[in-house]
């Protein structure tokens, strides 16, 4: 596939925000391994001295050892080390074994190990050193079948992370609107006030500010708490038009028209009644406790011409804002992309069918529209053939779970990715899928309940996200170094660097990490 050269030179200074240890909100974080200490322990403290990962902790002068911090344990891999606590314990009081609770966590797309690894990244800003597989899930298709080609060691570029450019440009049109750079090839996907707690939303905005990136209001309007971070918040205009007012369009550096969402393509947004609290109802100008089903489609858009009128309208309202068009992935995704280009969009954002949501019919999540893996090369090729690829920023989302998925999406042809679920996983979401009902999320993330919502803070959210993206950046930097690249923009459309396990001979396949397979009970 052709390498794409950007006509507009986008220069941006990379900012690397500080990583700060941000531990779990919970007393007993879940780990892949169980570390048990039995009654033979005499509190000699040797294990605490030995373990470099901080599993065994002695608190000050308190003689009794604390319960092991199991989530920090690297597991049986540690057997090879001199400091392996189980082997060195003089009383043979310690044991390490696989935690059976892993059978209950996660699913085919977000495996239990991928979830735990992202908790680790969000806590420490580093990659897990243990046996956690954080790049591949059990879905047995799409990104889980795609690998980066084994690099030529001669191409390795030995430069530090700071010298690698992971920024992308959101406006390549040279249309008189600002050239906006973001420091990572990702920004935050729309989450509405109503679907998600305010502290999480504001925390995401604070993280976006520190990361020099964006987050998005979603469909739920523009709470006052967003105003201090308005330079980093995208205002979404969705079919329900909740909270869309002139001032919220004027606040923003980018306006996103949400035509569709990957988790429920062809359907409007859902906010079930229990989550429509007085605050949510006020901002959305609706009735407390009444379920909100947004219409579909925009009833003012039934053609590409109507679509252009929409974009002209917001461009007229805010002459400095970029315009993004968020659509899902129909069979004619390529036509939609070109239509959006001619309508004047700066960013075309495709949200694939396996994307996240606060509430969506199960039948829609599974069955409607195509996975993003198929849409990216299709759209990229078409935009290249039309000669407009260099002028569009193409963002992909919907089932892009981790740093390697982002890199694969870029190599397939996107400029970057829009991230939603991974942000929530960083905040210790377990993907239990109960965001939509009753008081909402028991883990205080996707809830508008006054009591539950207080159990998560803006500071925690901000730092956990900064940490996770710092860990992601390390992965991108290492990948780029392997291929002798200095900028992630060089990776766009480099599908020649990818292989798909199903398209290799058996012998070639042996050279790559096998596709993880596991039968889960869903």
């Amino acid at each position, binding site marked *: 596939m052709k390498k794409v050269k950007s006509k507009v030179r986008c220069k941006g200074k990379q900012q690397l925000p500080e990583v700060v240890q941000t531990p779990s909100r919970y*007393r007993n974080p*879940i780990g892949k391994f169980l570390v048990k200490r039995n009654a033979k322990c005499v509190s000699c403290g040797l294990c605490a001295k030995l373990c470099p990962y901080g599993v065994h902790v002695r608190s000050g002068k308190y003689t009794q050892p604390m319960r092991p911090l199991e989530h920090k344990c690297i597991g049986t891999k540690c057997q090879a080390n001199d400091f392996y606590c189980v082997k060195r314990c003089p009383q043979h009081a310690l044991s390490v074994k696989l935690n059976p*609770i892993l059978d209950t966590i996660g699913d085919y*797309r977000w495996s239990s190990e991928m979830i735990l690894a992202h908790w680790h990244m969000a806590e420490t800003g580093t990659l897990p050193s243990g046996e956690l597989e954080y790049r591949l899930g059990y879905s047995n298709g799409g990104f889980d079948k795609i690998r980066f080609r084994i690099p030529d060691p001669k191409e390795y570029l030995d430069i530090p992370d700071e010298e690698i450019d992971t920024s992308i440009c959101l406006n390549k049109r040279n249309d008189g609107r600002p050239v906006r750079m973001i420091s990572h090839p990702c920004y935050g996907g729309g989450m509405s006030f109503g679907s998600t707690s305010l502290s999480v939303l504001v925390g995401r905005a604070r993280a976006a500010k520190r990361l020099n990136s964006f987050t998005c209001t979603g469909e739920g309007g523009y709470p006052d708490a967003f105003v201090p971070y308005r330079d980093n918040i995208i205002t979404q205009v969705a079919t329900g038009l909740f909270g869309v007012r002139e001032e919220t369009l004027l606040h923003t550096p980018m306006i996103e028209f949400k035509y569709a969402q990957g988790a429920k393509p062809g359907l409007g947004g859902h906010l*079930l009644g229990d989550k429509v609290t007085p605050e949510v109802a006020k901002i959305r100008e609706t009735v407390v406790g009444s379920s909100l089903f947004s219409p579909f489609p925009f009833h003012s858009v039934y053609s590409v011409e109507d679509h252009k009128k929409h974009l002209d309208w917001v461009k007229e309202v805010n002459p400095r804002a970029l315009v993004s068009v968020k659509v899902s992935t129909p069979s004619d995704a390529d036509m939609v992309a070109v239509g959006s280009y001619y309508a004047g969009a700066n960013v075309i954002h495709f949200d694939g069918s396996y994307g996240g949501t606060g509430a969506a019919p199960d039948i829609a999540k599974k069955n409607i529209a195509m*996975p993003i893996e*198929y849409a990216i090369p299709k759209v990229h090729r078409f935009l290249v053939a039309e000669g407009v690829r260099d002028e569009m920023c193409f963002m992909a989302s919907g089932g892009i779970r981790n740093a390697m998925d982002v890199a694969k999406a870029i190599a397939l042809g996107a400029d970057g990715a829009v991230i939603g679920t991974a942000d929530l996983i960083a905040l210790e979401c377990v993907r239990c899928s109960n965001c939509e009902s009753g*008081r909402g999320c028991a883990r205080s993330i996707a809830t508008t309940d006054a009591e539950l919502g207080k159990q998560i803070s803006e500071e925690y959210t901000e730092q956990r996200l900064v940490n996770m993206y710092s860990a992601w950046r390390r992965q991108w930097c290492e990948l780029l170094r392997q291929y002798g690249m200095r900028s992630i923009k060089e990776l766009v459309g480099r599908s020649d660097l990818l292989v798909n396990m199903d398209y290799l001979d058996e012998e070639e396949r042996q050279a790559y990490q096998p596709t993880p397979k596991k039968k889960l009970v869903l």
Partner: protein
Amino acid sequence: MPKKYSIHAHKTDPRFPPIGKYATVEFREDCAGSCRQCVKKRCVFHIFRDNFTHWSTMSEPEYLYTCKSCYRCVEECTKGIFSLAINPEYRTLGDDYWKAGIINSTWAQAHTGSIPVSGAGYRGPFAAEGFDSIWTDMSEIVRPTRDGIHGREYINTMVELSKRPMRLRFNPDGTLASEEAPVLEIPLPVVLQQPAFGVLSKTVLLAMAAAASSVGTLLFIKAEEYTPFFSPYAAHLVPCVTKDTYARYADLIKGSRMVEIAYGPGLDEALSGLKAINPDLFIAVGLPLDSAAAGRAGELARTCVDTLHLTGSDYGREVGTDNPRHLKDMIRDVHLALVGNRIRHRINLVFSGGIALAEHVAKSLICGADAVGIDLPLLIALECRLCKRCTQGKRCPVKLEAVELDWGKNRIVNLLAAWHNQLLEVMGACGIREARRMRGELGRSMWFDDLERDSFGPVFGKRKVTGIG
């Protein structure tokens, strides 16, 4: 425009505690017992409090409201004595096709009449064999969707099971000269079918008949099961007979709108016999979904038969072979054979066997069916666990024999309401507002093989594995 059709659901609680997915595990020996911060008291979903109440007296059943796997008890217990496990009983529920998740979701739909809605994204495999290798299309900007959900735009799910006249004749004054052909319509492309096993007590079958009557569809039922108790629902019953037995049920046939006769030698004679008993009778022919099905469909399309009812295995596969093809491919075969012979419009096709989810209805239509028949989901709606103990003469764990008529009817109606609304979701997204337009509309679907070839082919070359991989 026809009158708006909707199925009214009535919440109908289960009689037995449904089997939930998660089990909490406590290691009691480590519990201090007096920390005063016991997570059991602080459970957001109150599962520990409500478990003291006997499930059967709870107005809200266990599986919807108890453990939701939020892990807060596991992570917050001051002594770390909690863990979660998959409920061993849940693991044994169903099989590889009728998965525990499908059974659980069917129970919930039969209980509430609501479509399953959840948070977070899709959790399953990327693609799988059969219907899971098809995605339905959606429309966007250049071809808008239909906002059919909640009836904001009307989407018609009615289909016909009667033969359509091939042409109309008109008088010189423009009035219709042809006789108006009788029409048999059902308001949603789903018919009910007597399951091949299960505790099929009189009340269970009556509940199915009552549900069919309530939503306006048909129940295909063995003629020998008919008793006078079924007479209120006669207009919605399709007695299934054979060439040897139909004469015995002449009275029943006279009072029926449609009859199904099993395919076999001497069928022509039987068809004449049926028409002789009731000239206005619509006729369905029941035949196995085997390798000869497409050929037989071609023959039968040229007869007076209105509808073919083709039945595959309970697992959505071809029958009569050691290497069975999937239902989706079989539907395509039969449909395309008729299209190829330019006789598809002469006959209607109903496919049964392995229709387990609402999405299977939409995908079957896209593959070429006019309607589908459902059997096992009816039993599951009545709390059946598909344990098949009944086939060995053992007692039913959920006492299906004791089902009350209204309760059973409501549970099945609820399931159909949920399926109907899910069909509307898919059709709305497709931008299709007539179920009849869905038939064979492959352009509104995307298939795994095609997407791999068209999208990944130019990137990765030739695919070197077969199937899903």
